[in-house]
């Protein structure tokens, strides 16, 4: 075995020919600094590897870290004899020329987008010296409007997750990229003859035009190959419903700003259902805000099974089984002029009648929405009702769906499974986070079938359940690491631009899919750019395209890509194809997306795991949600393990009693019970996928028995009732009109003047304050995650949450009032109230919490000794204590993630909401620099800027024109526990509900009066 000299040469010296080729191939202006850089020699790769700290291997290598610590220890010990110590050899490459716009200490924001479930949310991502630390919404993006959901907020943590897969592996052995390319190439060559009959590509729902084009290109080359899109909670029903009603799978685009009356048929459009929660929440909340006399308040009817966030905002909520919604929809439809028949479930006939009357009275100004869990027929019914009520073109328009190729995902996956089972698949390429081994309906036995495929390739962020069953696993690049593009609900496309080099050498979906093409080794940037170059009107003109490209990147949206409204009409024979649904007799089991871990892809995200679920306030687990009545009949309490049987499958899962849940029904959220999520997510919760079948992936008949076992479920709020207190105040619209100042009359004890022994404190400069509109808040919890991300709040884990030691500076309290079976729900975000007369300040023995000249209660972490007296004396209990060392000081990735503007707290100190004082100070510096006052709206707290409902408003209350000052002047404005004379800077706007006065629709009375029942007076569930 002798090597030719030529081989040696090519390995060690520069191959000029290859460099030239590479330069020629690269389109557009490209800068190269040295021949080495173009040649991508190993030396240069090594140099890069060292230059970019994100890749520095010392951090990921425990041995390297240990020796670093050893050296640290040694240098401390030998400080006096430093001349003798061996300095660690590190290559430091300072900026030769500082990057444009980079000012050390000042963050930069870049527009990008995050796709989830085939729909993009436009984002502005904060970058500190090249480290993305915080995500904000992009106000120019129609899917964001400036807000984000909690998944986008938490995605930063996933980027830095040390459990992400970090190397390309073949059956557990690390392989270079080139070997992978060879393997794919040889596998593909076997497919050429059969035109790809054995090739399958499995992706998530693809809304990326580039990726779709790439896959189409492959399908052209291999016409017999198939592309399967799979999302664990597919929107098949919505598409099928549109096909039934209109003959084509259009996406209805709602406009809640124009809708006076909304009927949601099992549609949690505000949080977890459908594609555009942020946009719809923004629109919906705009009709929930009381300005002046309360005219324009909309009315929401919700018929649903599990108590959703949308149900919590309903003026009338009708709990019913999912399988009964069809009957209910038919009953309403038949009364608004749709030619269908059907009986509403028992007890809801009168309600259906009244709702139909209300809808009919608001022709063209109402909306009927069906949820993704409902079968095609209900979607068709909703479309027909909107048509009959004249809403089409008014409150709803129809556009092409955001996904490039709408498909029937369950059917496709079933076909794939049977193809695999029959041995017809030789090569399966799985790209993305859909994790079919976990999420495929259980009857498909996907995991067992998968073994029959001779060549299995997986690319994803984690070495997950699917990855371990594949031959090849390619670590995927996070969306913040790679170039891509994505469409949002109205079709508007955005370029997904990376903010950081792939931390673990991950490959984007484009790059992985490209391996199946003639140009297998292309980078994502080229692929995406090339696609848009072709699409662009400036196709031939490189300079014009460059200008457009830069604008797209800057704006975060590609103008003119929104889908045009489609003039669709309800087809004549739709009703015959909308098959009526037989109500499930007996117990019904429902499968829903999880409000915090989505479909399980965020199971390893500690921020999301610890975020209390909006309705149940459960953390770290899912549970079988059941109605109090069902709990009684099953004889179970919270945490008692149920044995659930569905289609012959069994799942043992603890029960959680949820007021307002439909009786005789169980709701399970998916995404838990994972075995390969990572260190955070493994073994948390119960795998509802194991129960779900493909015939009816959303709900079905089930049986439940109490097993007699118990399981510790952890909720952050043990008490659901208001206990007769006036912390939340509400009234019906009529009551508000009669008495606009009702909220202030609900004080237990009126304090009309300032009571103080000390001289009255004047705030001459800024006086920061916050107003939170309970009527607008949907309780989604995005603010909680935003606060965690902004303020370096640690994750404490299930056991510590069980001990009531969660660290969230901002919590969203949820209260029920009214009947146990169908209560009203109120959400109350609870940050520090920043009292002017703060009980915490006087009791601190070391003056670690003090009052600022602008009215903030400042925490001085360095001074805090941790007596916890401040927390005891805080009537709002918003202070959080580091009982143990909660911060992860060791994992290097998390060091990169943290916000450098916020102190990272250690053990033994108290912490709490600061009103994002770091943002105030940044604005102050800016305003002083420009010799002006801080403008209203210039400082947005993290919770405020993320809020899709714009429920949180922050600003200077000394400025009478500021938004917050105007809100505080509202008659609805009230201060929590005002009788304690705390004079809180955070105040609340009372809720005003708009129930239908029709006696067929009974409404719970408002809350906050003096005689609301306490828990022991109502039916004691606790």
């Amino acid at each position, binding site marked *: 075995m002798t090597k030719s000299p030529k081989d040696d040469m090519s390995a060690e010296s520069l191959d000029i020919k290859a460099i030239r080729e590479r330069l020629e191939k690269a389109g557009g202006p490209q800068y190269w600094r040295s021949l080495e850089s173009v040649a991508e020699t190993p030396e240069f790769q090594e140099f890069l590897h060292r230059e970019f700290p994100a890749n520095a291997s010392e951090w990921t290598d425990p041995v390297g870290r240990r020796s670093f610590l050893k050296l640290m220890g040694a240098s401390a010990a030998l400080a006096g004899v430093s001349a003798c110590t061996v300095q660690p050899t590190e290559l430091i490459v300072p900026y030769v020329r500082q990057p444009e716009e980079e000012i050390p200490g000042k963050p930069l924001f870049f527009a990008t987008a995050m796709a989830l479930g085939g729909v993009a949310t436009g984002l502005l991502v904060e970058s500190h010296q090249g480290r993305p630390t915080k995500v904000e919404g992009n106000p120019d993006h129609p899917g964001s409007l400036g807000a984000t959901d909690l998944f986008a907020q938490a995605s930063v943590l996933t980027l830095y997750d040390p459990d992400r897969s970090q190397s390309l592996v073949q059956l557990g052995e690390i392989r270079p990229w080139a070997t992978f390319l060879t393997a794919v190439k040889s596998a593909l060559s076997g497919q050429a003859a059969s035109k790809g009959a054995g090739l399958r590509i499995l992706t998530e729902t693809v809304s990326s035009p580039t990726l779709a084009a790439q896959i189409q290109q492959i399908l052209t080359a291999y016409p017999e190959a198939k592309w399967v899109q799979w999302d664990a909670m597919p929107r098949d029903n919505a598409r099928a419903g549109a096909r039934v009603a209109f003959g084509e799978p259009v996406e209805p685009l709602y406009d809640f700003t124009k809708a006076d009356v909304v009927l949601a048929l099992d549609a949690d459009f505000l949080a977890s259902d459908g594609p555009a929660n942020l946009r719809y929440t923004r629109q919906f909340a705009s009709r929930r805000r009381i300005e002046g006399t309360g005219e324009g308040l909309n009315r929401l009817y919700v018929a649903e099974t599990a108590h959703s966030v949308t149900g919590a905002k309903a003026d009338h909520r009708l709990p019913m089984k999912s399988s009964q919604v069809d009957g209910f929809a038919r009953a309403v439809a038949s009364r608004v002029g749709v030619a269908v028949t059907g009986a509403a479930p028992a007890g809801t006939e009168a309600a259906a009648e009244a709702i139909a009357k209300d809808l009919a009275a608001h022709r063209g100004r109402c909306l009927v929405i069906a949820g993704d869990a409902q079968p095609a027929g209900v979607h068709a019914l909703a479309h027909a009702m909107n048509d009959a009520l004249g809403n089409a073109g008014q409150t709803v328009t129809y556009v092409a769906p955001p996904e490039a190729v709408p498909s029937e995902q369950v059917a496709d996956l079933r076909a794939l499974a049977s193809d695999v089972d029959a041995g017809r698949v030789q090569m399966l390429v799985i790209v993305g986070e859909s994790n079919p081994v976990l999420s495929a309906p259980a009857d498909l036995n996907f995991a067992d079938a998968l073994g029959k495929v001779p060549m299995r390739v997986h690319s994803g962020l984690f070495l997950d359940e699917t990855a371990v069953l594949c031959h090849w696993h390619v670590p995927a690049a996070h969306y913040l690491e790679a170039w891509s593009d994505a469409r949002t609900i109205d079709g508007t496309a955005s370029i997904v631009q990376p903010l950081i080099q792939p931390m673990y050498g991950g490959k984007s979906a484009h790059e992985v899919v490209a391996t199946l093409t003639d140009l297998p080794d292309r980078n994502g940037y080229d692929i995406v750019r090339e696609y848009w170059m072709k699409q662009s009107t400036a196709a031939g003109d490189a300079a014009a395209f460059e200008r457009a490209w830069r604008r797209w990147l800057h704006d975060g949206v590609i103008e003119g890509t929104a889908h045009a409204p489609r003039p669709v009409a309800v087809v004549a024979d739709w009703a015959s194809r909308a098959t009526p649904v037989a109500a499930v007799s007996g117990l019904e089991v429902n499968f829903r997306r999880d409000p915090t871990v989505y479909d399980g892809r965020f199971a390893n995200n500690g921020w999301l795991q610890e975020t209390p679920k909006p309705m149940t306030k459960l953390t770290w687990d899912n549970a079988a949600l059941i109605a109090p009545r069902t709990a009684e009949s099953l004889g179970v309490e919270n945490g008692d393990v149920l044995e659930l049987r569905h289609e012959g499958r069994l799942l043992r899962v603890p029960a959680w009693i949820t007021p307002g849940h439909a009786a005789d029904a169980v709701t399970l959220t998916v995404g838990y019970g994972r075995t390969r999520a990572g260190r955070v997510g493994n073994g948390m919760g119960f795998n509802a996928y194991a129960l779900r079948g493909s015939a009816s992936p959303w709900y079905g008949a089930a049986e439940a028995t109490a097993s007699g076992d118990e399981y510790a479920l952890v909720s952050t*709020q*043990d*008490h659901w*009732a*208001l*206990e*007769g*207190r006036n*912390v939340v105040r509400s009234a019906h619209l009529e009551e508000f009109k009669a008495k606009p100042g009702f909220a202030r009359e609900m004080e*237990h*004890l009126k304090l009309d003047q300032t009571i103080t022994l000390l001289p009255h404190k004047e705030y001459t400069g800024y006086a920061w304050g916050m107003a939170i509109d309970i009527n607008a808040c949907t309780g989604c919890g995005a603010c909680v995650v935003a606060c965690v991300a902004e303020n370096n709040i640690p994750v404490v884990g299930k056991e*510590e949450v069980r*001990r*009531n*030691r969660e660290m969230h500076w901002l*919590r969203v*309290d*949820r*209260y029920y009032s009214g009947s146990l079976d169908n209560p009203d729900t109120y959400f*109350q975000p*609870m940050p520090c109230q920043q009292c002017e007369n703060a*009980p915490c300040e*006087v*009791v*601190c*023995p*070391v*003056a670690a919490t003090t009052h600022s000249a602008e009215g903030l209660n400042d925490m001085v972490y360095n*001074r*805090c*000794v*941790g*007596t*916890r*007296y401040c*927390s*005891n*004396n805080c*009537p*709002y*209990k918003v*202070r*959080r*204590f*580091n*009982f*143990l*060392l909660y911060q992860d000081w060791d994992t290097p990735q998390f060091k990169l993630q943290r916000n450098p503007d916020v102190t990272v707290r250690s*053990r*033994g*100190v*108290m912490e709490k909401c600061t009103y994002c004082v770091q943002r105030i100070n940044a604005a102050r510096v800016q305003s002083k620099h420009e010799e002006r006052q801080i403008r209203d709206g210039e400082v947005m707290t993290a919770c405020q800027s993320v809020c899709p409902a714009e429920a949180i408003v922050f600003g200077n209350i000394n400025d009478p024109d500021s938004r917050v000052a105007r809100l505080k002047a509202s008659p609805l404005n009230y201060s*929590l*526990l005002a009788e*304690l004379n*705390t004079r809180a800077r955070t105040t609340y706007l009372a809720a005003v509900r708009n129930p239908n006065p029709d006696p067929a629709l009974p409404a719970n009375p408002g809350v906050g009066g*003096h005689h609301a029942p*306490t828990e*022991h007076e109502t039916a004691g569930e606790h």
Partner: protein
Amino acid sequence: MANNVHAQARATAVLEAPVIGPGHDFETVTETVAQIPLAKRTPLGWVLGFLIGLSLLMLLQASLGYLVVKGIGIWGTNIPVGWAFPIVNFVWWIGIGHAGTLISAILLLFKQQWRMSISRFAEAMTIFAVACAAIFPVFHTGRPWLAAYWLFPYPNTMALWPQFRSPLIWDVFAVSTYATVSIVFWYVGLVPDLATMRDRAASRVKKVVFGLFSLGWRGSARHWHRYEVASLILAGLSTPLVLSVHTVVSFDFAVSVMPGWHATIFPPYFVAGAIYSGFAMVLTLAIPIRAAYRLEDLITMRHIDNMAKVMLATGLMVGYGYTMEAFYAWYSGSFYEQQMMWNRMFGPYGWSYWMLISINVGMVQFLWFKSVRENTKLLFVISLLVNVGMWLERFVIVVTTLARDFIPSSWGMYYPTFWDFATYFGTIGLFLTLFFLFIRFVPMISMFEVRTLLPQAKVETDHHGGH
């Protein structure tokens, strides 16, 4: 007339009731007390008791060591219950200390001579109880290594002072003053007896050690004069402390805004409770020691009876406090106070409330009966239970208020962990260890004071018709 004579005779009988047993002279009193520390052979019972104390002390060391390494999260303390066992224990120990000061200072000023036999070890108990108490406020903090000195107003380069509005700062002054005065008072009272020990000691080591600590006491008239003045001054200093220390401790609660804490009744109610628990502890200690060291002649049934009566009186005061607490919760008209009281009685911690009421208010009524007061075994059980009851009182105050305050969403339960109990029992170990060392090496009864009670000492003053 007959009536008058009868009453006078009864009064004389009471006054003449023996403070010490019959048949003692100076020598026997001194011998009875002094032979205990001077004995060569250590009694087996002492060794066993000391070992129990020492093992618990080891447990304290282990739990505090683990606490410093790991953080106070090893306890069950949480949000909303930010104070729990540690503060309960702190208040409990501080309260126990009160009996010693009351006996040595107030009863001295009131010339209650029966105090003389029990004052020495009651004072020792005070000091050891304060030592146990002091552990908690330091170690319950998140960063004890800083809390240990940042709460003191020491001059520093950053010109940072404590925050004087905080009752915790008042606590620092109250408790440290209390500890200082108690130690000085105790030591001053020891000096004449230490000299006696020096003079009686057989071994060289004991002679030197007792000699050092007796500060050259020779028993001259001038010494005695100085001694009398000093102890009167110290008694005068200590007297307000009996009232002030627990008053200040009660401010930790009363100054807050929490329902169930924010009450003006707290200072007197806490002081009464402190004396109640203090006398219970003195009885708990006195009854077995008296039996073990055959000190029945010096700690007579009269002492036992008097202490039981003090317990009864303070127990009734405490019961009045509970009644007023409940009454004011209702009478205040404050919704939160009413809810708090309801929760205290019928909420999840209701068991602790009713246990406390049945012990501190119910059981103490047995002390009305002389037969109970004379039954030392029963009294020992009652005094032990009173200690439990007073511990429960602090638990009820601290935990039930915090567990359910204003905002129902934040309500949460507190469950103690192993380490909570380990730290608590550990301080009991510290107390026992110190106390066993004390009875082995220091004369536990004030010999020179008791000697003044002998008839021989009263020849001169016999005609004054009393003491």
